[in-house]
């Protein structure tokens, strides 16, 4: 319990630091972002909006600490201001619309890569030097060395354009309204396959190799020999004794990869015009949409911190040794 509270404390401090950075960024930039935006939008903003922008970016004047506390208060009430590029939608609404798609794409591809990669790694290490161990890792590493957006473009060209068997863009077909019926779910799945596949293919080799190498050193441990001497079945030794111990570094890696999920596989989302956070972030940067950028940064940070906290919780369950000390 003490361990969890200490981790929670750490994440709260980290979150506070990221809010503070987010507050400082616009002030550290040369010039005034509001004026720059005004000139870009050629006075299309009404005065009320300018004021809201200034308030949001903390450039409205007044002592900085007052603005700082006002900003923190707004962040905790979920008020990120109004998006400029998608005026007059509030930033929180824009993000709420994008985030689920990024989470879906990221979670599905990470889940597949982790599960398949680790399983392959376990099996390869168990039959070290066997067919699986000699053929698959080099192949996966070869595929993994392609840039992921290149694979994305390649598969989009082959399966989408040339063969015409997969959708070309977006997360679901135009004309469908999001709901939980089967037609819509299948449509979403069809749109998900290529983007997810391009990410899985690139990352799976790393998972497999990592698991294989840890597993090989685990297999040399005395408790594995002991388990074998006990007359346990090979399957039980492989999963309950060897893989269970070899899993720990992999779990740490999952924590780190979660950042990749929420930040969005930016280029994948761009290639497939997938309406996720990465795609939106690019649009926000191009449109100098500071409120949206700030909102996205903060969301990504919060999500990464939250995900890592969850991984910490899981790790405590998996490794009894971290519970002490």
């Amino acid at each position, binding site marked *: 319990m003490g361990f969890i509270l200490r981790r929670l404390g750490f994440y709260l401090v980290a979150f506070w630091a990221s809010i503070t950075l987010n507050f400082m960024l616009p002030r550290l930039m040369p010039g005034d972002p509001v004026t720059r935006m005004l000139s870009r939008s050629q006075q299309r903003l009404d005065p009320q909006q300018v004021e809201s922008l200034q308030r949001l970016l903390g450039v409205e004047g007044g002592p900085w600490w007052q603005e700082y506390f006002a900003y923190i208060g707004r962040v905790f009430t979920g008020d990120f201001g109004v998006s400029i590029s998608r005026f007059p939608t509030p930033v929180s609404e824009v993000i709420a619309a994008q985030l689920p798609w990024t989470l879906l794409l990221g979670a599905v591809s990470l889940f597949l890569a982790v599960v398949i990669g680790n399983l392959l790694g376990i099996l390869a290490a168990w039959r070290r030097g066997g067919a699986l161990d000699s053929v698959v890792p080099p192949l996966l590493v070869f595929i993994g060395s392609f840039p992921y957006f290149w694979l994305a473009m390649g598969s989009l060209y082959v399966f989408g354009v040339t063969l015409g068997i997969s959708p070309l863009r977006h997360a679901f077909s135009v004309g469908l309204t999001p709901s939980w019926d089967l037609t819509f779910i299948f449509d979403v799945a069809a749109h998900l396959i290529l983007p997810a596949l391009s990410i899985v293919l690139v990352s799976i080799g790393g998972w497999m190799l990592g698991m294989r190498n840890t597993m090989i050193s685990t297999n040399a441990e*005395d408790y594995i020999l*002991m*388990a074998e*001497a*006990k*007359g346990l079945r090979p399957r039980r030794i492989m999963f309950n004794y060897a893989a269970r111990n070899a899993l720990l570094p992999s779990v740490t890696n999952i924590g780190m990869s979660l950042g990749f999920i929420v930040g969005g596989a930016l280029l994948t989302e761009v290639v497939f015009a997938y309406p996720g956070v990465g795609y939106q972030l690019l649009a926000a940067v191009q449109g100098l949409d500071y409120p949206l950028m700030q909102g996205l940064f903060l969301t990504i940070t919060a999500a990464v911190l939250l995900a890592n906290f969850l991984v910490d919780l899981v790790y405590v369950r998996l490794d*009894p*040794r971290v519970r002490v000390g």
Partner: protein
Amino acid sequence: MRPVLDIESLTVEYVSDERSVRGADRVSLQIAPGEILGLAGESGCGKSTIAHSIMRLLKDPARITHGSIRFDGADVLAMAPDELRSWRWRQVAMVFQSAMNSLSPVMRIGDQLADVFTTHERMSKRAASSRAAELLELVGIPAARIHAYPHQLSGGQRQRVVIAMACALRPRLLILDEPTTALDVVVQQEILAQIRQLQAELGFAVLFITHDMSLMLELSDRIGVMYAGRIVELAPAAALRREPRHDYTQALMGAFPPITGPRVKLTGLGEGVRFTSIGDLAEVAPGHFVAPADTTEILFAKETQR
């Protein structure tokens, strides 16, 4: 009486592309039911190789190239995988060298004990864990500790858990591969007393492997001394203590000090001496076997000349 374990001319080779090394060389020995046979020798002489071959735990590149291992008449080397698996632990159990690493760090010790019962006796999880608790009591650890993880136990306790695990199915032979290495002297004594008590209760035979001659003399009925993969002397413990015949055994006995009696200058283990082409064991007294030692080569003289 039929020996519980009968090893005949066992040869184990570690094979690599360039050369092969003999880990055990034409080793023959028998263990009678209920007997404690000690196997002594310095590191790398093949003690553990023999222990591992008995349970067929040798991994590549080690290979049994010659000889036979019979357990109670059954040919161990000819067993099919399934047969081997149910034979292991039920008939022969083993306590490994490193007490610290014999238990998986992420499993509760109760689960690791219960594993034996669920696998071999097809017990339900609940029944198996109550048997696990009884086993812990048997080696003097409170039953409530079945929920503990290995890192929460001391080194001595961990080794007790492993010994309890080894006794779980009341095997006929227990192999102890340096069970007290890495434990301090006090705990060593406790563990040995534990083993002696369990042996009196359960009546298993023991193959006791160590390089600690004093421990060995204390515990064993008979002792085999190994050198470079061969057994150079095999004799009852008392006979070996009284009059070791082989030069190497004498060196080994001279390597630890007597507590009483006149002061003796300690000699190093086979200092300047190397034994080559060791012959087969020959009986020199009833039950006392020695391999001919006339082919020792004295490197010592050459080195002093330099």
